[in-house]
């Protein structure tokens, strides 16, 4: 447990995938995912990973290769970002429906137009309804850890769904961080080889991907939802096992930071939560009762944990880095849906911040807290999300 090195975020992910011993890797390059798949390609070229690496002509085919490989009984992996994730969309819905448990890294980057390669969460959030389990990570270390857990969660016989570990492009993929690596034997003990009950086998021929009529379609869809919601205890359990292996606190579908006695709770996910924690320390020092709720597991949505963490607060300030055009930010929508109707639920104020890599610093967070306090104090019922740091001279 003493393998500690400073590595680039992408390398940490590639090393986590290597430790999981995948059979099949397939990818198409897109910034800022490239260093992950280049790293894996080099490992395969050097014989450090015993995997088939399928170099495809599109992200659509990358995800499709995984579908075929997974159905044939092989542990499979891909990574993509932004437009690439959108191009995979159809394949991901079908793969969740066919219960193909591959793992992918969703390297977060904004969506065209305008074309922009900086981070926000519009890409992976657009896939939240596909039936993928989604995790969002704060740091390179957490990215490494969650990839180790991802296959175990995906392949759990009662879950059997694709898992996407989302990490912020550039901020995490291209920054160097101290990472503590887990010993290979420990990973092997934690993650046994993939041995699905059903796979494509001429000795036991089965028909996959049938045409379903209205008599069973709803039941198939409900089964995915049920695998997610009923899977929550199993995901918690696997994360506890992960914590026991890493010696780090990877517990829980959410993480709370200084929420005890907090009047205002910021809700965020991804790398910005590190900045938020620093800002909260300053605000707490200044006597403001502020805390953070970080969502680690976004699908299934951990509303039970969230309710326990926020029920005594006055106001929840959501930081959304993605937006459903014509409505609200993604997390804001989820929170409002799940808290509405609960007696004494705190007010939810939805802030949209950081699109296309727009900087979010401690000052942004302080202003957001002040604004949320003000909205609560005045009892304003805001029909629209608050877009943070918009340049009025451009939008007017």
């Amino acid at each position, binding site marked *: 447990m003493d393998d500690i090195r400073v590595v680039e975020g992408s390398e940490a992910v590639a090393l986590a995938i290597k430790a999981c011993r995948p*059979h*099949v890797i*397939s990818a198409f390059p897109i910034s800022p995912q490239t260093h992950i798949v280049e790293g894996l390609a080099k490992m395969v070229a050097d014989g450090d990973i*015993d*995997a*088939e690496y*399928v*170099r*495809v*002509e*599109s992200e*659509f*085919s*990358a995800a*499709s*290769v*995984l*579908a*075929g*490989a*997974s*159905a*044939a*009984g*092989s542990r*499979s992996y891909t990574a993509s970002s932004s437009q690439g994730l959108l191009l995979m969309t*159809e*394949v991901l819905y*079908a*793969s969740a429906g*066919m219960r193909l448990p591959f793992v992918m890294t969703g390297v977060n980057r904004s969506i065209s137009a305008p074309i922009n390669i900086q981070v926000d969460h519009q890409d992976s959030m657009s896939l939240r309804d596909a039936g993928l389990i989604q995790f969002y990570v704060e740091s390179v270390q957490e990215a490494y850890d969650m990839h180790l857990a991802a296959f175990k969660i995906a392949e759990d016989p009662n879950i059997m769904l694709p898992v996407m570990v989302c990490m912020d492009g550039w901020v995490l993929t291209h920054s160097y961080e101290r990472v503590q690596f887990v010993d290979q034997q420990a990973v092997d003990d934690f993650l046994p080889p993939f041995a699905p009950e059903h796979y*494509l*086998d*001429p000795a*036991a*021929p*089965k*028909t*996959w*991907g*049938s*045409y*379903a*009529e209205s008599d*069973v379609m709803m039941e198939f869809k409900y089964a995915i939802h049920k695998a997610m919601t009923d899977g929550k205890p199993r995901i918690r359990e696997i994360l506890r096992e992960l914590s026991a292996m890493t010696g780090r606190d990877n517990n829980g579908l959410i993480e709370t930071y200084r929420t005890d006695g907090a009047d205002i709770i910021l809700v965020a996910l991804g790398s910005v939560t590190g900045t938020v924690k620093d800002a909260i320390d300053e605000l707490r020092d200044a006597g403001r009762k502020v805390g953070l709720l970080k969502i680690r597991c976004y699908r299934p949505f951990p509303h039970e944990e969230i309710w326990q963490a926020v029920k005594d607060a006055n106001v929840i300030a959501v930081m959304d880095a993605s937006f459903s055009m014509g409505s609200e930010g993604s997390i804001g929508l989820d929170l409002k849906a799940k808290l509405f109707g609960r007696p004494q639920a705190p007010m939810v104020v939805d802030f949209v911040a950081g699109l296309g890599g727009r900087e979010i610093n401690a000052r942004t967070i302080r202003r957001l807290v002040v604004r949320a306090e003000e909205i609560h104090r005045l009892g304003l019922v805001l029909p629209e999300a608050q877009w943070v740091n918009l340049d009025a001279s451009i939008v007017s």
Partner: protein
Amino acid sequence: MTVKKETPKESLFVSGHRACHGCGMALGARHILEATGDDVIVVSPTGCLETFTSPYGFSPWRVPWIHHVFENAPAVASGVVAALRAQGRDHTRVVAIGGDGGTFDIGFGALSGMLERGDDVLYICVDNGAYMNTGGQRSAATPPWAATTTAPAGRQSMGKAEMKKDLPEIVAAHGIPYVATASIAYLGDLKKKVKKAMTFHGPRYIQIDTPCPSVWSFPSHLTLEIGRLGVNSGLVPLFEKENGTITATRKIKRKVPVSDYLDKQKRYRHLFDSEQGQFEIEKIQALADTNIEKYGLLSV
């Protein structure tokens, strides 16, 4: 008491599917599997074959079969191949069987990628020349001057105004070891080609002409007859290409004029109603003659 007739042991595509009466594709699928044997995994894109063989809870497939989405059968097949290799299941072969929509059009990028990578897949296109599953819309495989629902004949249209995409030649240009065309009208020839394709490794492609009584609009007992007329007119040239060289062609014993083929199908009926149509029939005859010349289809 009725005795249920046992399905012959060797049949890997059994009765009970929901294809239309006289479907050329269903006939093709059964004979393809007779030639591949049972140690195969079959991948199909969305299309007629997928729809009529996979109503949930029923299946005529006696080999493992997977459908995922419309445009990705070649890539799914590549994934299966990679998994088999990683697992050391070297004896099992992968066969993709898809329609012309999934092959010529929406799956073309994935097909080209699979061919370029050299993946060990036998890709078979069961070509009925339009999107039959959705009611007969134009595809890149629709032959010129056939009427389809999206390129209909009309006061200012004689149907499809473009050529059929020459996919066998495009596929062959990827430098793959085996390309062949076949017809369900000549099942012995078809099975021989599938068997031969199975002796090669790497990507292989067979395009099978599968007449469709429903959309080509001919009586369903004429499927084989229409298939034969297509071949014997020269419109459907049957050949094999190994490593870029034509190694065999099926000779036409008695050449028939294209009008004998066209006038039995309602999709060409508009050509027989006007002077312009007669002119287009002559152009179709010229296409057949070009094929005959190019592939040397007439016995000397």
